[in-house]
């Protein structure tokens, strides 16, 4: 019958359409999953960039404070050396006199354990 084959045609077409719909849905799913990777990647990159900036600024700060510190230490050292120099100036004559006195203070004597051989 002509109507029979027509009906079968319609059914076959409907099945075909249905299969296509499902296949499309599956393709969408695959793409969605790929999207998940891409979006995750992007957001992670963003985070990484933020962190990198944070790190850079921390490092700059550290460098800066190091510079300040070394200047401070330099200054303290110079002051110390100055103090030593002026102290030496003040005391040198006295010390020299003492030391020279010792050089000239010659005491010829025998050793305390020396025994005069009989």
């Amino acid at each position, binding site marked *: 019958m002509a109507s029979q084959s027509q009906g079968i045609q319609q059914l076959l077409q409907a099945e075909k359409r249905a299969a296509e719909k499902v296949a499309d849905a599956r393709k969408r799913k695959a793409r969605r999953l790929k999207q998940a990777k891409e979006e995750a990647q992007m957001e992670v990159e963003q*985070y990484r960039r933020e962190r990198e900036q944070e790190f850079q600024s921390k490092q700059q700060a*550290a460098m800066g404070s190091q510079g300040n510190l070394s200047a401070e230490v330099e200054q303290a050292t110079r002051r110390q*050396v100055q103090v*030593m120099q002026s102290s030496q100036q003040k005391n040198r004559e006295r010390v020299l006199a003492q030391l020279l006195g010792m050089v000239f203070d010659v005491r010829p004597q025998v050793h305390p354990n020396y025994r005069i051989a009989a």
Partner: protein
Amino acid sequence: MALNDIEVQKRIKHMLAFIEQEANEKVEEIDAKSEEEFNIEKVRLMQTQRMKIIEYYEKKEKQIEQQKKIYISSIRNQARLKVLAAQHDLVSELMNDMKVKLIRLVENPEVYQGLLYKLMLQSLLRLLEPVMIVRCRPQDHLLVEAIVQKVTPEYMKVSQKQVKIQVDREVHLPMNTVGGVEVYSGNYRIMISNTLESRMDLIAEQKMPEIRKALFGINPNRKFFL
């Protein structure tokens, strides 16, 4: 014919509708699942990656701290060394000054003679050998020969020993020596150095802590220095 055309059409329409409905439901299911998996996967990936990034940067930031500490310690150490070097230089300056003053003092012949006599006697009494040789500067040779005459009896009196004292004619102390003598045993095996240089060196070495204290004051870092 069991079914007429209209019946068939109706049946077919139902079946078409059924097929379409099934398909739509299936698609809905797939779409819902896909959203769910999308979210799960995205969150999972982000977690693991973020973890890694956090670990990485935490380590790096710790390194900054460490490096800073190393830097601080290193410049502090350098500073300490600088101070010590400056101190050492100041002390050397003093020692050089002392040498200059010493040279000027021994230019006085009376002073030098007296000194030389005592230095020789001291050395001889230290050595206590039966034969002793005195070595001096070439410019002091005659002076020393004269002093030997005087010092020999004094030595023998104090030590109660016989002795033969000679002045070294072959080898002398360098001409630029500040002064003093060296005394050798007869076979040149034992030597007593009583030059002004060696006295100066000895004093510098033994008195260094006191010299530093006198020049720079008490060191607060030394807990056990008397």
